[in-house]
């Protein structure tokens, strides 16, 4: 039985880890790379979910419907960036107020246009044989890990990544090095939007699709970004691992609600002890080790 308990915990962890990673990654890219706190992040996820579910209802196979969700959210993000967000770079508070406004408008707009619910999709791949849960959650975890690996490679090893990091660290120097920083911001915002769209698409089969769909991701996303700290990919991995472990362990013993409560308490403690996040602590440790050598 102890073995089965461990399996349950493992499955719980995988499910929550994937959820936190996928909820966070689009927000983390936009905040980490551009310094924009996108309070409409949940509604970008909402666009992905609605585009997916209506594409599926129109007859597209699920993978293609999901791809449509990603593409439509990316295009939506680019249009919003060109029209509104680009005027808010370097204006943190303004960007929060504006994106919050966008969020409110979008929720009401979706309610007016599509009503209070959208057609469901149904969870693909069936149930796992040993643990009580769908195979699809394992697929989500594999996608989450693959996504993190892909993003790490994109930002660390490609010319685009060098340009993006150069722009993030010092925009003026980047411009003087011939980098089109406007285009870098637009591309980064498109990537962040596409990632949010992907999250909406991937969770469309497992969560009821309503105008408030996006808010279900917000707590995990913002908590993980703050706990993770400045480093986009490493921060997301470590914060998701930490929060996922706490949530899964408590959920396994005391149920989903207490798991959520324990995760938020752990996040509050972590933020109190590590104001710069987990990656801030790592940077401090590296610096101290460098000084002592």
């Amino acid at each position: 039985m102890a073995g089965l308990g461990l399996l349950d915990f493992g499955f719980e962890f995988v499910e929550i880890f994937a959820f936190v990673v996928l909820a966070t990654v689009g927000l983390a890219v936009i905040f980490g790379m551009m310094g924009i706190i996108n309070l409409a992040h949940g509604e970008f996820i909402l666009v992905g979910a609605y585009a997916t579910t209506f594409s599926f209802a129109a007859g597209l196979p699920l993978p293609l419907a999901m791809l449509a969700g990603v593409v439509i959210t990316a295009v939506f993000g680019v249009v919003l960036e060109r029209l509104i967000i680009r005027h808010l770079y370097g204006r943190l508070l303004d960007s929060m107020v504006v994106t919050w406004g966008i969020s409110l408008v979008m929720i009401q707009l979706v309610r007016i246009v599509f009503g209070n619910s959208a057609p469901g999709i149904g969870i693909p791949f069936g149930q796992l044989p040993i643990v009580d849960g769908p195979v699809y959650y394992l697929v989500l975890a594999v996608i989450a890990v693959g996504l993190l690996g892909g993003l790490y490679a994109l930002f660390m090893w490609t010319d685009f990544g060098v340009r993006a990091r150069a722009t993030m660290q010092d925009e003026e120097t980047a411009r003087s090095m011939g980098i089109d920083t406007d285009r870098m911001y637009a591309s980064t915002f498109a990537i962040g939007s596409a990632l949010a769209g992907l999250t909406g698409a991937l969770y469309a089969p497992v969560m009821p699709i309503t105008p408030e769909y996006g808010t279900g991701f917000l707590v995990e996303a913002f908590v993980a970004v703050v706990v993770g700290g400045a480093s986009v990919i490493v921060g997301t991995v470590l914060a998701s691992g930490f929060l996922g472990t706490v949530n899964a362990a408590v959920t396994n013993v005391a149920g989903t609600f207490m798991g959520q409560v324990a995760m938020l308490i752990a996040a509050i403690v972590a933020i109190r002890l590590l104001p710069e996040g987990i990656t801030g602590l790592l940077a401090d440790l590296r610096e101290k080790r460098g000084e002592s050598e």
Partner: protein
Amino acid sequence: MAVSDPTIKTKPAVDETGRKSSRVLQTRDLRKEFGGLTATDDVDFALEEGELRCLIGPNGAGKSTFLNLLTGQLEPTAGSIYYDGHDITAMPSHERVERGISMKFQVPSIYEGLTVAQNLRVPLQQVVDDDFAVRTREILERFDLLAERETTASDLSHGQQQRLEIGMAMALEPKLLLLDEPVAGLSVEETAEIADLLCEIAADDGVALIVIEHDIDFVESIADRVTVLDQGTIFREGSIEEIKADPEVKRIYLGEDH
């Protein structure tokens, strides 16, 4: 601001005798106002290929503003900038860099968290498709930074940081290099090294340079010609000897009464 088509050659790159002109840069009535303050006041300025020009003047004379107008970091209120025979007044700054205008700022603009080699990668990937290793090594050797190749930029000495930044600017293979106080805070030896480097860049690479500098000895050691700015206008232009001998320059810039 007047919008001009950068693809139209508004000034032919030939001189009056029909020979190909070696003029790299020309500004006409270039003006920049900040609210009620005119920082650059209808400046007509010209620079030839391979020329090393120093820009001097009291604080607030508009020197840095002028350089920032040339790089596109600031938009002029009026006037035009011609570079290599093209009107670049409305061109975004990254396109000016692509065309060969490179800038080294007053405050060291390097990526402190990256190594020396990684810093060079940023400009190099704008101009070369591969051969990063070869070009990186060439620049490191030229700017005497080979031993610091894997050193994090924040751990370099101030002089090494200045050399790295000039190396990054030169990695872009410019025709016009703009430097804002490149020897501020450097030792006598480091200043002499930078002076040799800049003279070499002008003479061997044919790069035209505009250098803002307060250290008149440094200016004397490098400049072909000197332009004195005062209150946003060109106050005097000439050889260093002429400038040093000018009593009005002494009064406004060197602070000497006559």
